């Protein structure tokens, strides 16, 4: 048993109150703590990922109570990949927030950011469904604060929408957990994986309901159509670094679907047969189509990016819903890509806002820093729309290749390819209106008050994310090889289950007297 696996949860959990209590009025100290914490997290995550890269499963029992009774934190290839992705994204988002001054426009940005990190990392590492709920709530309540950071009426209105939608999601999650506990008597994922197999086919009504409810909850998190309505407003109105960091939050939903529906309700289980190909796949196809049509229809740059996030989640869920090793491997490759690409586009749209005061898709005078911003938008759009040479293209090819085995292969190919075309049109339209046509308009007569040149650190942060996207493309072979090994591990969960359940720990014994 290694203690390191619990450190990615403990570190931000301790850092956040420290920032609130000790450095409340000192933005400089907050920044130092926050960046140092995230850098340490990257180190931890990389170390853990290296440790499990040989296929082993590491775990930590809190209080040393044995698995089905106590709380376990489990790290395998999938969860360590996700925590590494989260902490790397967090670093660049944080650099952008510091560079652009967003963190100083309201109170407690860094503390909330650390709490959010704690929730996300906890959700990736927990081995227990109820703790998944608890960590979802931790990340959500921090995200409520981040979402309305810096205030403003439009942001508050989008915020209340976001909060209420997620509260309903949490309630559904609790209903699902109650149903699962009533049917199986456990909420430990490894224990559930064994017990669900034992339920007799004629007694599966309750567990079926629970499986569908759980899928609904994760679909809300992953913004799958028709449960995506919370996303466009809240991501568009959220402060740009927060929106960029939220790019990982939809992936938490995708991760939960992968984890629960490969281990507890595997595709060959009779109880949930049909859930993946009858419900999940068509919903994902519609998500992709709606997201990309939204890109074409958006009248503001930030909404355009929000819809492209819905579209890319559709692509991820298409690959997941194939539930084959090739599909999951493609989905994981695409998850890494779309996290970085979505973050880049949100940050670029903030660069546009900084340079010209708004993000309306209308022709205006050239903005400050137009050349660099335009180049970054161009590259981000290429990545998100999935054109060569960036990783979006490779990810899409992998998804299409994995779709060969599906019955709905024709549909997948048609929708993926046509939605790519639509998104290319959408991004080309936006780019030409914002950057290109601007040269036909002279500088405006009345000086606009709140425009300024974006800070260098902002460009560095966006450039860093581009470097990661490029590396993700250049080393696509190695990355895809690793995601394939993740998928293999996911479809052979016996090692995970036996590691969690069979290692002896402290068991509660009845004691005399009470």
């Amino acid at each position: 048993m290694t203690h390191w696996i619990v450190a990615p949860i403990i570190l931000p959990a301790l850092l956040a109150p420290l920032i609130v209590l000790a450095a409340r009025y000192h933005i400089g100290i907050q920044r130092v703590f926050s960046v140092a914490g995230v850098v340490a997290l990257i180190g931890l995550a990389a170390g853990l990922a290296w440790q499990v890269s040989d296929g082993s499963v590491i775990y930590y029992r809190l209080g040393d109570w044995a698995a089905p009774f106590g709380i376990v934190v489990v790290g395998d290839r999938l969860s360590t990949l996700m925590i590494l992705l989260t902490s790397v994204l967090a670093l660049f988002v944080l650099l952008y927030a510091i560079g652009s001054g967003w963190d100083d426009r309201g109170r407690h940005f860094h503390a909330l950011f650390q709490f959010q990190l704690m929730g996300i990392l906890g959700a990736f590492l927990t081995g227990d469904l109820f703790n998944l709920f608890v960590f979802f709530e931790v990340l959500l309540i921090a995200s409520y604060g981040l979402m309305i950071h810096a205030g403003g009426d439009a942001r508050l209105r989008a915020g209340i929408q976001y909060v209420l939608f997620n509260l309903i999601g949490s309630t559904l999650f609790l209903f699902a957990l109650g149903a699962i506990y009533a049917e199986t008597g456990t909420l430990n994922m490894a224990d559930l994986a064994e017990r669900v197999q034992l339920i007799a086919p004629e007694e599966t009504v309750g567990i079926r309901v629970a499986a569908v409810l759980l899928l609904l909850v994760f679909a809300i998190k992953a913004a799958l159509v028709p449960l995506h309505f919370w996303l466009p407003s809240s991501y568009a109105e959220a402060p740009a670094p927060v929106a960029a960091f939220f790019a990982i939050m939809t992936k938490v939903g995708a991760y939960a679907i992968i984890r629960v529906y490969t281990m507890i309700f595997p595709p060959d289980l009779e109880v949930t047969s049909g859930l993946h190909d009858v419900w999940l796949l068509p919903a994902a196809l519609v998500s992709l189509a709606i997201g990309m049509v939204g890109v074409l229809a958006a009248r503001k740059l930030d909404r355009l990016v929000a819809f492209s996030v819905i579209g890319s989640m559709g692509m991820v869920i298409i690959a997941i819903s194939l539930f084959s090793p090739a599909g999951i491997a493609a989905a994981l490759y695409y998850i890494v890509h779309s996290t970085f690409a979505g973050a880049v586009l949100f940050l670029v749209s903030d660069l546009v806002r900084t340079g010209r005061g708004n993000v309306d898709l209308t022709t205006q005078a050239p903005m400050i820093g137009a050349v660099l911003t335009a180049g970054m938008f161009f590259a981000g759009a290429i990545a998100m729309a999935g054109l060569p040479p960036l990783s979006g293209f490779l990810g899409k090819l992998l998804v299409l290749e994995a779709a060969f085995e599906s019955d709905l292969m024709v549909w997948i190919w048609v929708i993926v390819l046509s939605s790519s075309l639509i998104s290319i049109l959408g991004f080309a339209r936006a780019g030409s209106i914002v950057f290109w046509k601007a040269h036909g308009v002279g500088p405006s007569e009345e000086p606009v008050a709140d425009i300024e040149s974006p800070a260098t650190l902002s460009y560095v942060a966006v450039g860093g994310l581009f470097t990661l996207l490029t590396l993700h493309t250049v080393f696509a072979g190695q990355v895809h090889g690793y995601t394939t090994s993740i998928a293999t591990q996911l479809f052979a969960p016996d090692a995970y289950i036996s590691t969690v359940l069979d290692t002896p720990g402290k068991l509660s014994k009845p004691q005399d007297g009470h």
Partner: protein
Amino acid sequence: MELLVASAIGVMTAGGIYLVLRLRTFPVILGISLLTYAVNVFLFSSGRLTIGAPPVLSDDVTTYTDPLPQALVLTAIVISFGMTAVAVMIGLGAFLGSDDDHIDDQPEPRETEGQP
């Protein structure tokens, strides 16, 4: 007993869903509170309904009630209570700021000049 608990959960859920669909801040928050009451009772009953039995081990007792759902309910109550408070505060801020308590996006006024 089962009928009473089940119908209570059902009625609260139905009322909650109805209120949530009203799409104004105040009814929605009330609706979500009702939903959380329903889910708390539901969680509580997920360990089977046992009357008058202790949840902790002791020598002179043979029947027990399941203690785990009680712990789960406690967590759920704390979380949903906090979340509702946050929702009330943000909702109040949004209402005072824009003098409008609709949850859904209002249609944007179309620009008559036309898009370039």
